[in-house]
């Protein structure tokens, strides 16, 4: 389309010229394009862009749930919501918890997914589909339903501790202990997310030309060396994609504690998203908006950092 329009329109004619068949066609195309975009743009504007902007606006006010009938009567408080947030011990706690979850959860999920992908890609020939379907199955489950099962398994005298007892380990009260509640969340998150990354990594591994690996083998590189020196570097773009996807998801960490621990015990699984949701529940809309923007900035920053870190070595 673009090519054709350019070919027809005389090169000297300014784009904004409102006469001639080419301009008329361009106008017509634009009208058609707007009609095609209208349904999406309308709902995108109402349900995404407007909330996004008003949330930013709200974070500079003392908006409370009681202000809904008269949204423009609220007081402008500048950065007060943000300064108050960083002095709020519970919010700081929620940031630390989120970092814990992200810092341990992302490397762990990636390592497990990569191990599964490498094993499925190279080491076996049969039942590949069975394994792939099995490892991916947790991804399709509803978090509410899964939470029920996991709470049942993680009870102090539940299945996990029974299995641990069989090999002589006395398991903790997983969800009731401040030390073990977060590892439990991470375990569950790895279980639920490794499938997605495994599929992405599998696709990446299949894109690596076999000749390169074989060349390294001819040169005398061992299996581990081939993996570290050849496969991993060639997988860098895929690993980056996986890391970014996972961080956008994991930084928003919320549903697991919401359905498993209610953020407890003693706020040990309270995340930034969960803190925000609680403030929403208390009617502190201004505070909730400010907290959510802190999270947004964190997600954007981490994504940028990851792109830089992965790119520099190329």
């Amino acid at each position, binding site marked *: 389309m673009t090519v054709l329009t350019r070919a027809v329109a005389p090169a000297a004619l300014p784009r904004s010229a409102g006469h001639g068949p080419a301009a008329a066609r361009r106008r017509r195309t634009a009208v058609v394009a*707007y009609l095609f975009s209208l349904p999406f743009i309308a709902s995108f504007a109402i349900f995404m862009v407007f909330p996004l902007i008003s*949330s930013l606006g709200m974070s500079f006010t003392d908006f409370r749930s009681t202000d809904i009938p008269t949204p423009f009567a609220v007081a402008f408080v500048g950065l007060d919501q943000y300064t108050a947030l960083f002095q709020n011990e519970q919010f700081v706690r929620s940031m630390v918890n989120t970092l814990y979850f992200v810092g341990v959860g992302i490397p762990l999920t990636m390592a497990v997914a990569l191990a599964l992908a490498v*094993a499925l890609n190279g*080491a076996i020939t049969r039942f590949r589909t069975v394994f792939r379907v099995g490892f991916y199955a947790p991804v399709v*489950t*509803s978090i509410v339903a899964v939470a029920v099962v996991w709470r049942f398994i993680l009870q102090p005298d539940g299945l996990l501790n029974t299995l641990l007892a069989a090999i002589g380990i006395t398991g903790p009260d997983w969800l009731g202990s401040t030390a073990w509640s977060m590892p439990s969340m991470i375990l569950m998150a790895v279980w639920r997310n490794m499938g997605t990354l495994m599929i992405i990594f599998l696709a990446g591994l299949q894109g690596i030309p076999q000749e390169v690996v074989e060349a390294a083998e001819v040169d005398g590189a061992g299996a581990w060396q081939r993996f570290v020196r050849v496969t991993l570097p060639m997988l860098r773009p895929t690993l980056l994609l996986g890391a970014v996807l996972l961080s956008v998801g994991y930084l928003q960490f919320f549903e697991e504690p919401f359905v498993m621990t209610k953020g407890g015990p003693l706020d040990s699984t309270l995340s930034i998203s969960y803190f*925000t949701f609680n403030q929403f529940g208390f009617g502190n809309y201004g505070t*909730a908006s400010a907290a959510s923007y802190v999270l947004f900035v964190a997600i954007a920053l981490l994504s940028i950092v990851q792109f830089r870190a992965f790119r520099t070595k190329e």
Partner: protein
Amino acid sequence: MGSATTATAVSERSTRTRKVTSARRRSPSGTVLAYTALTFALVATLIPFAWMFLGSVKTEAELRQRPPTWWPQTFTWDNFAAWFGRLDIGTFFMNSVVVAVFTVLGTLVFCSMVGYALAKLDFPGKRLVFTLVLVTLMVPGVVTFVPLFVVVSKLGMVSTYPALILPFLAGPLGVFLMRQFIQDIPDSLIEAARIDGAGELRIFLRVVMPLCGPALATLAILTFLGSWNNFLWPLVVAQSEDMYTLPVALSLYSVGQNSTNYGVLLAGSVLIITPVLLLFVALQRYFIQGIAATGIK
């Protein structure tokens, strides 16, 4: 399009087979080790499912028994009977289905239309729209949560189907997916139809859409899954019991004195998980192609 995909898949498979046979020739012990480790990992991954299915048909007394039993000693349907008796599972199930179906249909229509405009038509503001779509891919859900709730209450939509459906038709992911896919359709096909005198709507419906099968399938699956499992937003806007979706019903049932009523809870989990699990096993090829293509769950 379909045959090209198959050809790639076949060639990939043969490459892999070749590589693997050489690997096996080198170290049979490595292969045995890989199978053992993978089987162990698979069993560990699937234990929660097994435990859920087995637990849902055990009696409450047996569920409290320590140490726990593996196979049910007494087999019972009572836990499911609770959902079909005093809990109105029919309504919850219908709500989940209605919301998921309309979210999928709306997403397919909206996203493919705007995806076509962004990929193949020229219009002022195109770049702005696409940039906004890319930016909102990174926006955490909680950012829009509060104002979204205000918008929905202002529109008087609390506890209605539109409140459960409309906000999800604005998903940036679908637009991104469709735009990328349609961009790969050769311009010459569209130009040929245009020269033959076809109108834009006709081109879209008769030329572009029939070529979008794989992308539409992926988008439909991802959207259905997201809608079926969606829980936080429905929990907040479905405030009357006749509007509850399955996850909302289960999560509201599982608080307070029922929170350790594991028989009924596990039966509820089975009822939520089984439909998507069956769908997944039946369509696993499309699920996995879609994930690999978009890189997004």
